[in-house]
């Protein structure tokens, strides 16, 4: 700093080539990571459908999924039994990864995953109420979960609103709301009969194996619309990350962009929870893992979504095939995610920064 180059005499050629090199490296890394993640997700997707009590080769799986072969027994196992679970893991993972990283970047805090800011809990409360009080099942429970998540998201936005939404207030209110909803879930469960309580607990653990075809189709359609929207909104998000003043100076309308981003993220996580139940920690870790791969503060929504899908596919493989008895996916993600959360809390405090 003391040996400062005087502004007027700094050599222009160096700056230009240094900047060009920097951009090229960042772009190459981003392309490489995105491609590698895509390949990994595709491989895991196929692998999920290969293993099980009836082993099938990769070629047969691909041929069956793409309707290129006609082998009734393979088709039954692949398309009938394994494809729905694999597709659920894939789409729910994509939705959770994208949603989580949007929340974290928007609120500038690695703890600001939808798991913790009350949205997942809102969905859980609505779903459990439906299961216990209305003896609901299937699509009704998903619809209730979707509604609960959206209402919780709106509630959070209204409560946290004061001259715009700021990160810390949103997180603190979210944690409060989360605890509130969890308390209500506990109350409802304590009033439930054994069968319904068991149903509700199973739903609350989160599993990619419980989705119905209709729910899955809804999530696929939503992803086809919302992922491109999220990619478009990445642009204002990059400005918003610098603070509201800087974002406005750069020519964005912070409140409008934030509302759009929050709405996208809430709907994504709401659909994911509606389809698979509250699968914890995927949304929390996907963004930071993607950032670790891409380089800091790159905040790619697509890579984060891919990481989410890879994580959930892996968790499902572990839960169903590596455990002595098949477990709900949420148990595995929780077991892996909890140590990460502890590490995150420990390092966040040490740096004295919220993110």
């Amino acid at each position, binding site marked *: *700093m*003391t040996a*400062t*180059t*005087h*502004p*007027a005499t*700094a*050599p*222009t050629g*160096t*700056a*230009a080539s*240094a*900047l*060009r090199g*920097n*951009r090229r490296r*960042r772009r190459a890394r981003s392309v490489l990571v995105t491609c590698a993640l895509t390949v990994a997700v595709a491989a895991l997707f196929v692998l999920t459908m290969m293993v099980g009590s009836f082993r099938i080769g990769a070629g047969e799986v691909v041929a069956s999924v793409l309707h290129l072969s006609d082998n009734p027994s393979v088709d039954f196992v692949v398309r009938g039994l394994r494809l729905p679970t694999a597709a659920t893991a894939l789409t729910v993972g994509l939705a959770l990864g994208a949603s989580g990283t949007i929340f974290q*970047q928007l609120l*500038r805090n*690695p703890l600001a995953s939808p798991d913790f800011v009350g949205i997942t809990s809102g969905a859980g409360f609505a779903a459990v109420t439906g299961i216990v009080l209305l003896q609901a099942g299937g699509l009704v429970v998903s619809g209730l979960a979707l509604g609960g998540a959206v209402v919780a998201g709106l509630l959070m936005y209204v409560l946290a609103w004061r001259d715009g939404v700021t990160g810390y207030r949103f997180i603190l209110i979210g944690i409060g709301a989360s605890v509130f909803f969890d308390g209500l879930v506990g109350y409802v469960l304590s009033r439930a009969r054994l069968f319904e309580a068991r149903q509700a607990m199973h739903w609350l653990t989160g599993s990619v194996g419980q989705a119905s075809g209709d729910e899955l189709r809804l999530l696929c359609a939503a992803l086809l619309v919302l992922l491109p929207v999220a990619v*478009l909104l990445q*642009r204002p998000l*990059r*400005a918003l*990350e*610098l*603070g509201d*003043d*800087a974002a*406005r*100076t*750069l*020519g*964005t*309308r912070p409140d409008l962009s934030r509302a759009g981003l929050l709405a996208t993220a809430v709907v994504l996580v709401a659909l994911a929870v509606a389809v698979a139940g509250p699968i914890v920690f995927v949304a929390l870790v996907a963004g930071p893992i993607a*950032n670790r791969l891409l*380089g*800091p*503060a*790159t*905040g790619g929504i697509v890579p984060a979504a891919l990481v989410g899908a890879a994580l959930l596919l892996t968790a499902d493989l572990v839960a169903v095939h590596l455990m002595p008895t098949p477990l709900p996916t949420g148990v595995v993600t929780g077991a892996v995610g909890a140590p990460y959360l502890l590490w995150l809390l420990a390092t966040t405090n040490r740096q004295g*920064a919220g*993110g």
Partner: protein
Amino acid sequence: MTRLRAEGLTLGYDDRTVVANLDVTVLDGRITAIVGANACGKSTLLRGLARLLPARDGAVYLDGRAVADMRTADVAKVLGLLPQTPVAPDGITVADLVSRGRYPHQGWFRRWTDRDHDAVTRALDATGTTDLIDRPIRDLSGGQRQRVWVAMALAQETDLLLLDEPTTYLDINHQVELLRLLRTLNAQSGKTIVVVLHDLNLACRFCDHIIAMSDGAIVAEGTPADVVSAELVQKVFGLDCLVVPDPVAGTPMVVPV
């Protein structure tokens, strides 16, 4: 004709009015310092000029048009601001941050162009931050960090640049270095600069025009030599002092008694 001015500008937060009915004219191609005691409304005025605070009454005009009626993206191509406490995303590198200054010049689908590249190169050059481009912001010293933020504002390529207390948290060496940088930018490109400063001596030394504020009103305006006197310092800061010529530049220098 002046490009940026305010008429009858009233600004405030919640139910509190901070500045009322101000007329301000920013001189084109000059460096203007807004000075005053703490909480006199100088940062509020700057935020009002930069459309970060909506006008309660009156209006800010940019190139003859009311800023409130302009698209914020269009204003961003002409008017830049370095906020008092900008936020850097965790781990972001200098190159990434400075490049984000190009935001208003890029469309939803437009990719990085040679113009963007040149603007960022010039900004890095002008602020002497080229050597830092691969470094994360959090690893930099306060002075380096402030130059990087200035570089981001420069990459925006605006004719007018507002800076909100850019020298706070910097030691005297880096304060002077930053103000020299602003002088150089002004001399080389004729950029109009408005800067909120705490240090009256530095304002006199490095700025062409001074706006002195007290209790949300402008109490004096003009060149440092015309404006800064013992009476003014008493009135604005409540400090008894002598004003003597700066031994190096001859500009007014405040010496407390």
